[in-house]
């Protein structure tokens, strides 16, 4: 035991505990003085406010905890949509920036410089109010393919009405599991016998055949419900039936993905440029096709550079989704740290829960991306 080594650590610990202790004591004294009670009992109380868009069944007769779930799921929904689109746009633009075609390269560069240099909140307002100005009223909406209606009150799309939905879901899960097995089998076969198996076509086949079987054998049945226009008053209309995506969700997802995509594009560009030219030339010299060069030599090395900064962008996007409150998209901040906080007045409890929730979300994304990063990292032997 080296006492000299431990003493500073111990002192730091004591100071940290004392500081935290002072703050929590001070908070309790002040809350008592001001007659503010503390507790999480309110979570089970009836919330008595409604939310315009929810992935689970919810109305004001449910509890505050349920309202929390509604907000959390909406936050996750817009984050997932945003991450998917930001990745797609980012990869495309990132590669476009490396194009030898001057026009494509410049367009991509202008896009990146324009969108990453304007504050996100402004962009959200722009897309929202631009959407509200540009989109037609329900009665004037031109149907797309006869069944999609993009209006100021939302994007109305046909919805599936399912019978035995659970069996369908099981069939999809079964397909995914069998694909994993096929992949393992193919890998073993290649290692042992050097024979390649067409994994991709088998996987696609499985994904189509198993769910199809569930329709014929499992009694799964889906009908499509098409949105129908309905008159609310002399001059106001809406659509009934089908699925409704509120304009708030669309403009928020759009703003988030266009903004974050610029950063991802730069990560992708950096990653591809980071692979030395000699690698490509060496790969070509041993007879790999250009496709194989990209897939087997360039991408695995580029991904190592791309993944860590892209993880940051995913985290940013998730946290930035809290700007939803500005445009009435019912995310966690609007529903829980907004309305619920106001109606209960429990600022400390609700803010702490919200903080912990974002922390958990971010750490989950982090852990997943770190796992993926480790998987593709150079395995030193």
């Amino acid at each position: 035991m080296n006492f000299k080594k431990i003493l500073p650590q111990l002192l730091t610990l004591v100071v940290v505990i004392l500081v935290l202790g002072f703050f929590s004591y001070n908070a309790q004294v002040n809350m008592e003085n001001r007659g503010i009670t503390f507790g999480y009992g309110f979570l089970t109380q009836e919330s008595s406010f409604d939310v315009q868009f929810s992935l689970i069944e919810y109305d004001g007769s449910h509890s505050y905890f349920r309202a929390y779930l509604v907000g959390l799921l909406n936050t996750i929904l817009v984050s997932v949509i945003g991450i998917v689109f930001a990745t797609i746009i980012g990869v495309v633009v990132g590669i476009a920036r490396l194009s030898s075609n001057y026009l494509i390269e410049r367009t991509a560069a202008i896009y990146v410089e324009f969108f990453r240099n304007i504050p996100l909140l402004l962009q959200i307002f722009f897309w929202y109010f631009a959407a509200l100005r540009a989109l037609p009223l329900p009665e004037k909406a031109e149907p797309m393919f006869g069944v999609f209606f993009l209006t100021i009150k939302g994007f109305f799309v046909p919805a599936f009405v399912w019978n035995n939905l659970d069996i369908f879901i099981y069939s999809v899960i079964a397909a995914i599991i069998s694909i994993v097995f096929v992949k393992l089998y193919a890998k073993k076969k290649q290692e042992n016998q050097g024979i390649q198996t067409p994994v991709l076509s088998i996987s696609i086949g499985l994904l189509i055949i198993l769910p199809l079987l569930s329709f014929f054998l499992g009694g799964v049945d889906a009908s499509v419900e098409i949105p129908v226009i309905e008159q609310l008053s002399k001059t106001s209309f809406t659509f009934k039936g089908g699925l409704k995506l509120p304009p708030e969700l669309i403009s928020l997802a759009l703003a988030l993905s266009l903004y974050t995509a610029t950063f991802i594009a730069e990560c992708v560009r950096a990653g591809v440029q980071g692979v030395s030219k000699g690698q490509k030339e060496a790969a070509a010299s041993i007879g790999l096709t250009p496709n194989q060069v990209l897939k087997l030599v360039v991408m695995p090395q580029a991904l190592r550079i791309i993944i860590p900064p892209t993880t940051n962008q995913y985290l940013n996007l998730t946290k930035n989704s809290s700007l939803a409150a500005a445009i009435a998209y019912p995310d966690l901040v609007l529903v829980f740290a907004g309305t619920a906080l106001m109606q209960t007045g429990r600022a400390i409890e609700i803010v702490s829960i919200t903080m912990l929730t974002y922390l958990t979300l971010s750490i989950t994304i982090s852990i997943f991306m770190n796992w993926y990063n480790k998987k593709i990292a150079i395995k030193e032997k």
Partner: protein
Amino acid sequence: MFKLVKRLTSVVAMFAVLFTFTTETMAAKKSKTLKNTQKKGFVRCGVSQGLPGFSNADAAGNWTGVDVDVCRAVAAAVLGDASKVKFTPLSAKERFTALTSNEIDILSRNTTWTLSRDADIGLTFVGVNFYDGQGFMVRKNSGISSVNDFKAGVSACTNLGTTTELNMRDFFNSKGIKYEPVTFEKADEVVAAYDAGRCDTYTTDKSGLAAQRIKLSNPDDHMVLPETISKEPLGPVVRQGDSVWEDIVRWSLNTMIEAEEYGVTSANADMMKTSENPAVKRLVGAEGELGAALGLDNEWSLRIIKQVGNYGESYKRNIADTGILPDRGPNQLWTKGGILYVPPAR
């Protein structure tokens, strides 16, 4: 375990409120808020982010409105100068936290007095300076002339975190109508979204509807439905636990209303010192020692009336003359058919 969670949360929360909490002794003989206000030389007042007639800043940053006048009255009483007020514009979401965390000393921001707000979250409502009720605004050409004309699927824009949100649910539920609530944090966005056609109706307090209508692109295309679906007594709020300060704010407001009742105006207040009526003399500080009971001098009420005016003057200047609500409705004195009735100052 639960206790640990509770502790942990307080710790987390402390970082949020670190800069706003100060330790306070309950036994301060004189009101701490009063002492601080006199030391600072201004009253810290929380107002709305812009509601014409209630609290609204002009291009030069001068605040006007009936809510603003309550704070000015307190400044006149406590500091002798109605202009010594520092206004903090607050959203509906921020307002109570700003008050309980000591960033402002009076919240005068068209805030509805309810039991849970009064009792549960460390606030005290001191009175009512405007009796309001929730209403609906619709487009004139919609053919909707009453709340009974709403149909399932109607979308309603409003501010989040208000009693409006709760009343709206009660109302539509009682009618058995499924509706779509679209809630924004700031009033300007609510107006913009309603104006663009995102919502079929805009619902909030009727005074608010009347005031916000001016901001629409074509105010004449819109109308407020006749029905009122809730009681919304709006009034100033103070922190719980400083009863002297609470009394000062309450009686500053009461003085304005009582002055109107006795016909004391900013113009004739000085002459009223020699009035025959002892109630009037007490009101302008020519008789009795009412100021001392509040820890103030005896001219406090006279200054309120001279510098801010009585309630009627404030209403006329801010709400009637601006065309927001020319008719005083329930906000008329009890002697003239309204429900403004304050305890006597004696």
